[in-house]
């Protein structure tokens, strides 16, 4: 990582997605799925719309407001999963959460068992969010939209949610 944590956090890609969010807007419900994620710590909110057809996320839209990290993460997410299958999307969520948990796990155990096998190349632009882990309070920002996405997938699959709906402590 570069010596300046700040430049690592506010990478050009992130600022770009913050200034020009992709897939901004809403969709009709139904056929689409609408899921909210609320960050109680700051009062910010992300709303995710998912349009699934034959196991594929045909369209994804984002509404809400918040800091540059939560908004750009939502935008990056929407770009990353649009057109992907449910299966693929779950994998991306899982990889992204792994990326974000590196620091948190260190925090709790003091151990550095964070040599997780994440294929950084496959993550594409999402990798730009890696710098967030150096700022523990902001991880919650980055994860916000992803919690909504995960919950939306569960609702689509009709399964009971296997992820907490709110930001983890």
């Amino acid at each position, binding site marked *: 990582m570069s010596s300046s*944590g700040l430049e690592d956090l*506010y990478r050009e890609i992130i*600022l770009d997605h913050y200034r020009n969010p992709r897939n901004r807007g809403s969709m009709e419900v139904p056929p689409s799925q609408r899921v909210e994620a609320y960050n109680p710590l*700051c*009062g910010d909110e992300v709303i995710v719309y998912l349009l699934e057809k034959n196991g594929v996320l045909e369209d994804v839209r984002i509404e809400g407001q*918040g*800091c*540059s990290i939560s908004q750009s993460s939502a935008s990056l997410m929407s770009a990353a999963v649009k057109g992907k299958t449910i299966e693929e999307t779950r994998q991306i969520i899982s990889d992204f959460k792994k990326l974000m948990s590196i620091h948190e796990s260190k925090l709790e155990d003091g151990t550095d068992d964070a040599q997780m096998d994440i294929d950084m190349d496959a993550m594409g632009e999402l990798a730009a969010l890696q710098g967030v882990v150096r700022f523990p309070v902001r991880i919650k*920002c980055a994860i916000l939209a992803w919690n909504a996405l995960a919950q939306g997938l569960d609702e689509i699959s009709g399964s009971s949610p296997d992820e907490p709906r709110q930001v983890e402590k």
Partner: protein
Amino acid sequence: MTDTDIATTKTQLDVEHIKQDFPLLSKGFHGESIAYLDSAASSQRPTCVIDAMSGYYNYSHANVHRGVYKLAEEADRLYENARITTGKFVGAPDPAREIVFTKNATEAINLIAYSWGMHRLSEGDVVVVTEIEHHANLVPWIMLHKERGIELRVIPMRDDYLLDLDNLEEIVDGAKLVACTLMSNVLGTIPPFKKIADAAHSAGAIVVADGAQLVPHAHVDVKELDCDFLAFSGHKMLGPTGIGVLWGKAELLDSIPPFIGGGGMILDVKFEGIVPAEIPTRFEAGTPPIAEAVGLTAAIEYLDNIGMNNIFHHDAELTAYTIDSLKNTFGRDITIMGPDTTENRGGVISLALKDIHPHDLAQVLDESNVCIRAGHHCAKPLMRRLGTSATARASFYLYNDTSDADRLIEALSKAASIFG
């Protein structure tokens, strides 16, 4: 404090010198000089406070209350002395009986809500708060609303960030208790407390002053305020964490039952019932914050030595300077959420720069080692009134000077360029 007090003293603080008493400020955070602008959340503490506690722990510690041996007597003496010092600091008529040590200001207010409120209030009784309160002076009353069915009335805020007292008499009419902050931790607003207290008393209500913000920064006298209860915290006034203060009028304290039950607060215990002890012991169950009381004593002595009026004046000057610079530098890009004067406000500046999110602002400022707080500042109803979910807040204390303000502005410029 009274206006004359402020007018009569204008001794400039020697901030250069004062900073030397605070290792973090003179030596830096991991060696890097920092501009600490978050004293409204918690202050730093001078070496003398830390030394007083270390000295206590090393050579004078024993549990208090009735130990016969000299070491315990010494601890007892230090603890009771802290009570006297703290009481005198806020002008308590009977410091030995009227000061209760709690864990923080929040517990102090909860003590009132539980001991007084739960036993004196019933369904439909009215409690008045203001729109600018900290959660510490809101949640206990809202919980009473739920538990006891009391009615909560709110003194609203005007668009100039001062309280709207036009309908004061109507609002407090029939109220049993009026709770008001002495200074907003978000806006810096200092409400005309005495006026509110007078109206409340005329209506037959008792008055609770939340002094968490003002007591550390100004000369506060419970007699001049004419309040019935006053709550504040050690950690915002150069003292340790783990200690808060409740001052209450002796007759009032004496008339209410205990809150927390345990050792030290009773005269007798049978399985069938207890006989509570006299005040203030009645309200101090369990081992109290002894070392913290010793630290608070040292903090008060340090503050007294510098002079509360000088501190208030210093904060005011620095605030005026900063607001001027902010406006000159950022013009219409900056919004300051707080009174425009320095008369009715303390050294807390909530601001918004363009539409940069407060957390992004604080993050960028930290890169320049400028420490400010971003968030709702435990004042959610006020945030709603302000139409936002968070503000960026810089706050001053006796160890800040214009160089800190200048660093704030420089770092804000950097943020403006990043998110420009």
